């Protein structure tokens, strides 16, 4: 079932060509990404924060949707690998002039680049681009529609590994707008592959996709129940436009039901860690006391993002990892 995807993002030897989704990658491969990130983490702490791995390579950040955090961490990661980086913000550029996605890709491809880091509002956009770029170009998915955000998922599990070590005894709750969240989908895949004991999704029925149980998660519509005994809580951002689509009645009611407060966190395990992919809405999905509290690892997630993105970019550029099919 995942064969189609694997032949696209990995070459016949199982080496990484593109990084489009966590789905279809085995446990050893995810661990390799995290181990590679570990080796880069020290680079970030040196006075000269650079390694020459991608010297002479040109990486294009192709963002069809605006982003600050993801784009800047990708940019920093690329620069620390000594690559040349070009930021193209298409959200305010060519496609609004009617240029097709493929034409945009062809044009930038003609500038002899080596890698695309792509964010796009449509699910499947990264797959589409990977299928149509010149063979020497690698595509890294920086978020496609509701589908996947694999580097975010990897930095999240990397952060969890740093704190908890092993996944087998962990209970993880992902709380909020699962329906529209590419982060949640990729996290579920990554946590599943790493052998997490229990993955829960928590939210109102309107924000949970139909048949999400088929992904191997349990569903809770009550936050208190969903948090009972969990070791990790991942809060998702609630987009304000969800009020218009009749998904929820108001921010106030959402916070009353699903907002994460110190009091609610009492039900979780004593050493629970609180995560959020950002940007956070204080007082909508999370209380400031929790976000800034000692159990929050939100800012660590951001710095881990650089190491993970360095790992993925260098692996894709050098066709590394795997060794034998998944």
């Amino acid at each position, binding site marked *: 079932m*995942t064969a*189609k995807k694997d032949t696209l993002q990995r070459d016949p030897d199982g080496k990484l060509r593109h990084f489009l989704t966590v789905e279809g990658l085995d446990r050893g491969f995810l661990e390799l990404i995290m181990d590679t990130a570990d080796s880069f983490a020290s680079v970030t702490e040196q006075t000269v924060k650079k390694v020459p791995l991608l010297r002479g390579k040109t990486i294009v950040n192709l963002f069809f949707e605006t982003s600050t955090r993801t784009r800047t961490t990708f940019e920093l990661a690329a620069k620390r690998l000594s690559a040349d980086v070009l930021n193209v913000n298409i959200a305010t550029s060519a496609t609004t002039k009617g240029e097709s996605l493929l034409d945009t890709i062809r044009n930038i491809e003609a500038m002899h680049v080596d890698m695309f880091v792509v964010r796009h509002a449509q699910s499947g956009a990264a797959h589409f681009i990977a299928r149509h770029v010149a063979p020497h170009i690698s595509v890294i998915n920086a978020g496609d529609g*509701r589908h996947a955000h694999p580097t975010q998922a990897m930095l999240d599990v990397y952060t969890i590994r740093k704190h908890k070590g092993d996944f087998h005894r962990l209970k993880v709750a992902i709380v909020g707008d699962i329906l529209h969240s590419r982060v949640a989908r990729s996290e579920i895949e990554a946590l599943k592959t790493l052998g997490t004991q229990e993955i829960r999704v928590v939210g109102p029925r309107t924000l949970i996709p139909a048949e*999400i149980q088929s992904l191997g998660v349990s569903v809770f519509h009550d936050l208190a129940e969903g948090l009972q005994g969990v070791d990790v809580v991942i809060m998702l951002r609630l987009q304000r436009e969800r009020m218009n689509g009749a998904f929820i009645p108001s921010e106030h009611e959402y916070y009353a039901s699903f907002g994460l407060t110190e009091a609610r966190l009492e039900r979780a395990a004593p050493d629970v860690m609180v995560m959020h992919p950002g940007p956070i809405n204080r007082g909508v999905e999370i209380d400031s006391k929790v976000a800034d509290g000692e159990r929050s690892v939100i800012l660590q997630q951001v710095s881990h993002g650089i190491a993970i993105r360095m790992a993925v970019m260098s692996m894709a550029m050098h066709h590394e990892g795997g060794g034998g099919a998944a």
Partner: protein
Amino acid sequence: MTEKLQIRGGRVIDPSQGVDEVSDLFVADGVVKALGKAPDGFTPDLLLEAKGCVVTPGFVDLSARLREPGLEHKATIQSESLAAVAGGITTLVIPPDTLPVVDTPAVVQWIFDRAKAQGFVRLHPVGALTRSLKGKDLSEMSALKAAGCRAVSNAHHPVANTLVLRRSLEYAASHDLLVIVRPEDPDLKDGGCAHEGPVSARMGLKGIPYAAETVAVAQVLALIEQTGARVHFAQISSARAMRSIWRAQEKGFKVTADVAIHQLHLTEEALEGFDAAYHLSPPLRTQEDLEALRVAVKDGVIGSVCSDHQPHEPDAKLDAFPATEPGMAGLETLLPLTLALVREGVMTLPRAIQSLTQSPAEVLGLGAGTLAPGSLADITIFDPEREWILQDSTWRSLGGNTPYWGQTLKGRVTRTLLEGRVVFDLNFGEAS
């Protein structure tokens, strides 16, 4: 021009007469004259050898978009007529969503004239149910009927509200026009591009729930009781909607239905990898739906199988999956995919042929779909065992949007006749 012809030694299957025998067919002046024994004094001008082949009435396709007028960058009446006869289809029922929309007698006449000029396929344009398909005002159905429309439909376009739906059904009924409904509630569809289920949940594709189809079917069935309209449900995709239609038939409602052939072969699993060739409307659903729809065709709850032909230019499919245009080109795969159902034991060959001939012809009250003596000699001759590769040299539609590209298919039309005239011959102009 050949006057008299004999089709010799084929397996003649004509469900409209309950015929399934190896026999000869005699045609003169564009009309079927006899089956089995030659009429007195019949000397054929042309002898067509059909040994090893199946001889059936020309297929009737209840939904094929030819894209003309107005969308000639996708396909034309000429290109798709060629594709149709190469697929054994001699009668095409074409939805009204052209540019301009088929909502005036002038457009109907234009299509008839065009078909006449091409001369090798029968076209039946379906009139618009509402003006410009906008779903608000009734179209001039009486005029459309006078121009030759036998049915009206709003195609994939929504009707503004249930009151407009009621009145359009009533008005169509008062002119004894069939209403073809592609049941889909636009609000519940909500811009979705895939079946709402495990696959859309995993792939992050906006889902189209079963309810989009079942709610629309239930609405129409409730209104049929009030209006007495004759309704045909087009391209049913879900077992649930099919069962509602079946229950209505059991109650004595005169409702019919068809299914697109690809719904009997593909499921949502095909979307893995985001291949836009599988972006279809209605969406591919589950294995359970596929199996229930197959049984429904076998039992006749769903009488007809159609191609739901929707040819596109290449650019229409070159984008991220949700941004691509839905639909596949299907005229030339209708027969091989139908024969595959017979080989898989889903139904008998005569029932399969009936779903392509007699059943769809009866939906529109056409004289086609039969080889009864005196009927127009629209005839398809095919070799059920012949394998062919779907590629540029064998494909005629301008729409290359088929997920079967490059695959080997089994079952090939060798000749197609329209009113006794050979309009397709595999031995001519076939490069493979």
